């Protein structure tokens, strides 16, 4: 292991790189390498799919040995490069559909808070004012469709969840963000939770002091009859990480008072 590995708490943020220097970041299945030259930035990366469920955190090295054999690479040319660059995490660019491994029943009048995770993207920015060079998912999640039929609906990303109700049981995965979801069943029938669609492009990202990443908490209220739920996105970081810092704004701004198809929607 490279002796220059930085054992900080967080993998994102401002980084420094000298000319002809190379830094590398290993997080989840992604190996990312950023090299700086006097007039260009070179970014290379590849995925190791055996490490998708890796909960061992991440490794950042500010003085890595360049690896020319990485699968993909790109060059960004400038008149002059400066020594700072930013690695910033982002939430997914589509809603994320979480399916509990075991379906969850929510009786009439009950409410529950689930902690659902969603995959993270990362982006590299350079310069003053910062220019975004590059954006990739840390792990490319599977596509899925969420809607009442194959004709109507939207394309989302898929995620499986154990439907954890207890914060202590949450595994610490540096390449996923956590969203507390409060589900309230105000309808007159039991709610069978087979899938929940998180409106991830409308959420912000907050960084906790222990290096965890969270979005705002959301509340889904199942109204009388049907699968439509009114969605409310809380303002500010969620309760478990009240003192966290805003890391990234939402990709899209939300429309107020929108009814949102977030629950179930069976396929016929």
């Amino acid at each position, binding site marked *: 292991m490279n002796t220059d590995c930085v054992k900080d708490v967080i993998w994102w943020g401002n980084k420094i790189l000298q000319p002809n220097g190379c830094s590398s970041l290993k997080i989840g299945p992604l190996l990312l390498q950023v090299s700086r030259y006097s007039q260009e930035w070179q970014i290379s990366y590849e995925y190791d*799919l055996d490490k998708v469920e890796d909960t061992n955190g991440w490794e950042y090295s500010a003085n890595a040995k360049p690896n020319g054999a990485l699968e993909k690479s790109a060059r960004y040319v400038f008149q002059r490069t400066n020594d700072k660059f930013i690695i910033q995490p982002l939430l997914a660019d589509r809603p994320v*559909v979480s*399916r509990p491994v075991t379906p969850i029943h929510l009786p009439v009048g009950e409410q529950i808070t689930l902690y659902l995770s969603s995959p993270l993207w990362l982006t590299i920015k350079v310069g003053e004012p910062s220019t975004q060079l590059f954006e990739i998912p840390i792990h*490319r*999640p*599977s*596509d*899925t*469709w*969420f809607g009442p039929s*194959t*004709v109507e*609906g939207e*394309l989302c990303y*898929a995620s499986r969840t154990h439907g954890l109700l207890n914060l202590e049981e949450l595994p610490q995965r540096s390449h996923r963000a956590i969203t507390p979801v409060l589900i309230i069943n105000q309808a007159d029938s039991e709610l069978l939770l087979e*899938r929940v669609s998180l409106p991830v492009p409308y959420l912000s990202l907050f960084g906790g002091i222990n290096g965890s990443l969270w979005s705002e908490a959301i509340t889904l209220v199942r109204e009388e009859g049907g699968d439509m739920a009114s969605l409310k996105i809380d303002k500010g970081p969620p309760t478990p990480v009240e003192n966290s810092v805003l890391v990234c704004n939402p990709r899209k701004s939300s429309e107020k008072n929108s009814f949102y198809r977030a629950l179930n929607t069976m*396929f016929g």
Partner: protein
Amino acid sequence: MNEWWPYFVEFVTSDRVLSLIRAIFLVVLGLVVAKLTSIMLTRFTNKHLDTHQSMLIRRGSYYLLLGIFVVSAMKELGFNLSVLLGAAGILTVAIGFASQTSASNLISGLFLVVERPFTIGDVVRVGSTVGEILSIDLLSIKLRTFDNLYVRIPNESIIKSELTNLTRFPIRRIDLQLGVSYKETLSVVREILFDVADKNPLCLEEPKSLFIFKGFGESSLDIQFSIWVKRENFLELRNSISEEIKTAFDSNNIEIPFPHRTLYTGSATEAFPINIQDSQSAQSSK
């Protein structure tokens, strides 16, 4: 010069010339009014209708208004309109009989515009032709096939026959036809296939993939494995999943059999006699 002037003034102020001037003025006014009205209508319809319908309304309104002004101009010039209209009517019938196909195409085109089974940019299949729609015109539609050929299809044949719009819905299903050897266990094959689909990020998790046992084939167990994909990724997934299935089958020793034929000399007789030679004696006997 002075001798000609009174004659000139008399000529210019005579009824016929005045009515000619009025007629010209009406035509010019008609051109201006028709142009302005069609521009205003286009601005309005562009927001509410698609480009094709908007173009139809623009042209229709332009020619209608221009026609009204031209007819007024002709009336001004002293033409007897009823005789003209009568002659035009007879001419229309004659032309109509001669141009039945074109008229049919024209009317079919109008119906297509109203019905909107496709728009410009959609990929459609008409008979055995598959292509992207370049334009929807009065008499025909124009396609660009994927090998970059230009195809003209009359509107009449589209109205009359079946048309498949490949890009109307956002997701599509890929149906893979597979055959595995009779010695394989179907539950194992099924598990392998679902695992391959699960690992491929382009394959949609929902709608769920389908494993359909189609029947006991001549040489293999016939299976259909259907997976869903975002329309734009159709080709990429079809290629990548086929490769991944083959790799998974190879690493799990699942055989995709060649067609088999079993030869019998008869139910109660012995098998064919076969003489096996090694390669050296085969060469020397040549």
